[in-house]
């Protein structure tokens, strides 16, 4: 079977690429992909949504620190 589509978008190829990344990068990337896939937002709206989420990611990191 030839697999060329990225049906789930969170497949093992992405997981492997994220493996050595910082936690907040991992989280932010997955969040962005999930938002794009499930909400199907236009790019501008997606960028705005992600900008709002950035605060949370940084705060979380600061709390962990």
């Amino acid at each position: 079977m030839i697999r060329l589509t990225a049906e789930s978008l969170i497949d093992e190829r992405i997981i492997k690429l994220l493996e050595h990344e910082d936690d907040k990068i991992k989280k932010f990337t997955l969040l962005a992909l999930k938002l794009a896939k499930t909400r199907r937002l236009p790019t501008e709206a997606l960028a705005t949504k992600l900008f709002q989420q950035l605060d949370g990611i940084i705060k979380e990191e600061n709390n962990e620190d």
Partner: protein
Amino acid sequence: MKIKQLELFNFGQFYGSQVIEFSGADKSAQQMITVIYEKNGSGKVDLYRAMLFCLYGEKALRRLPKYGKDENNIQLVNGVALGEDASGAREGVKAHVRVMFSHHDRDYEMYRALSGIRRDDGKIIEQIEDLKLTITNKAGKTQVWGLAKKDAIDREIGHILDWRLKRFFTFDGRKIARLAKVSQGKSILEEIKYLLNIDEVYSVEEAMRKLDKKLSDEISKVVNGDFRSRIDLRRKCQGQIEELSRKRLAVETEIVNACDERDEVDKELEKYKHIASLVNERKNREAEQQQLFKQKDEAAEKLRHFLPDAILLLARDSLAEVYQDIDEGREKGWIPFEIKRELVEKLLLEMSCICGRPLMANSLESEHLRQWYESSGAALNRAAMEFFRSIGNTTRFSNGKTEELDRLLKSVNSSVEAHSLGAVQLEKLVVELENTANMDVFQSYCEKRLKLSEKIAALEKEQKHFSRELNSAEAKLKKLELEVDNFNKESAMNEVLQKKHSVVIKTHDLVKKIIAKYVEDAGRVLEQETNTNFVNLFELAGQKKSFKKVVLKEDYTLEVLNDKEQPSFLDMSVGQRQVTVLSFFIALVQAASGSHTLDVPLFMDSPFGQLSNEHIERLLNYVPEIAPQLIISVTDKEFGADKGSMLYRTGRWGNFYALEAVTEGATTIKQLPAELYG
């Protein structure tokens, strides 16, 4: 999926009701090849258009994601039927396409209807009238979905035929030929992106780019000096890259569209091949006439140069007579003055008489001789001698000139005759062309093609320019990013903003890597499948040995390595290169349908191109191994007795249809026996 039947009613070129039954629809059928034979461009393109229209509701044959063609200009209802309606009932024309197929023990009948009317201003208005999908399961239970269930119908069809297959529905021989000779990187990468269907990842990448810009703006507002200037420069550079990428993409899109448009024009021009051959003949004749005119001019020029000599020829006979008379006179001593003068001159010089006796100076004899010599008129005699000599020279000079004049006159005559004859023939051709129907249409297509070719060349130049600019801007950005990063580390200001920015930059890089990874994986899969196809298509004595494998290079161009691992794509013959590209195209269909063995029919439009008979034979033997049905459309130009009997010998050829234009714009489909080639 196996297609059983296609019915067209007043659709495209097809007037009235026309039906095609496809070979191989029956499970047990050995014969799975259907051949559709087209004479003089009678509408095979509309068959594919009908399939896509019926199954997906699309008017255009190919539509690229993001930048679609304007479908409003595509007319689907038959023009002849529209014309009849416009001059008659004016009720509008009904048209439809019905596709009957089976899939996983279910029978499907897809029906899509539309209507059209030609308004008084000539504009054609079309609209969808009906949509129906009938599904019958193994037990004979039938379900019918209509317009109200359009979404469910789309989903069902999408489930059976992956939407990406639309793009590969037709195996366009022209496209294969084009890819075999022009740079393929852009086209192949585009096909891969299309297959991947990862628009969401591209959307995330774009969002990250926007976030990066937004955060850079904010940081720039709160920092000073060098840091700020670096951020500004970086932002400017990013803007430049964005702008250049956008421009390059626009140019590349324009190139693809222009190439597609040119292909369409070429297809249209195929219909006017007889005009093209007349035009070609006229062109050759005009060149020939120019040459003849030049020859005529040269011959006339030579004659003109000869004219002063030719005038002498007019007087030659009279001069010869005069010369002869003088000569005779001289011989007879009637005109002895030159001897006399010479003799007297000699006697006076030597002061000696003709008898040897010395002449005494101041003697009477010497005085008489001197007086005679002085009165004999030296000037007159000199002129007479000169005249005599000139007559001699002129007569001698004119010898042979008659032949030369004859030769020159013949040359002028023959070139004038040839030129006049050519002019008559050219005039005939011009008149024939003037009276040829559709000459204006042909000319407008030719002009369009020329303009498109010029446009493509200019665009390719532009594309190269943008690529160069982009490369240097990207190198500059890398340098600036390093500098900004250093400033970031050194500066403790705006920690939160910087952290956000850093997350965005890293995420952006990661998303780019994800895309690259998908593309790389897809490239590898395609490369692997291409090689399987390549080996099968090249499995002929001698050829397999010299070409080892196909590789998809980093720039997404195809390369073929020989047994010494050396690149040899460019050393291959045109036919061999086409086989390579064909292998890749089959791989694309395999990838789109999700398996090496296809579950869908394979449509090949003019696939034979410049393939050798061996390659065609191999292709015809290989395709049945990987596809349940093969539908080949061919033109009378490419499908002769040899190809027909080759196809017949495979034992796989079942149905055979000929598309015949009964009048312009009205094509009928006629079934013929494949045994014609047996």
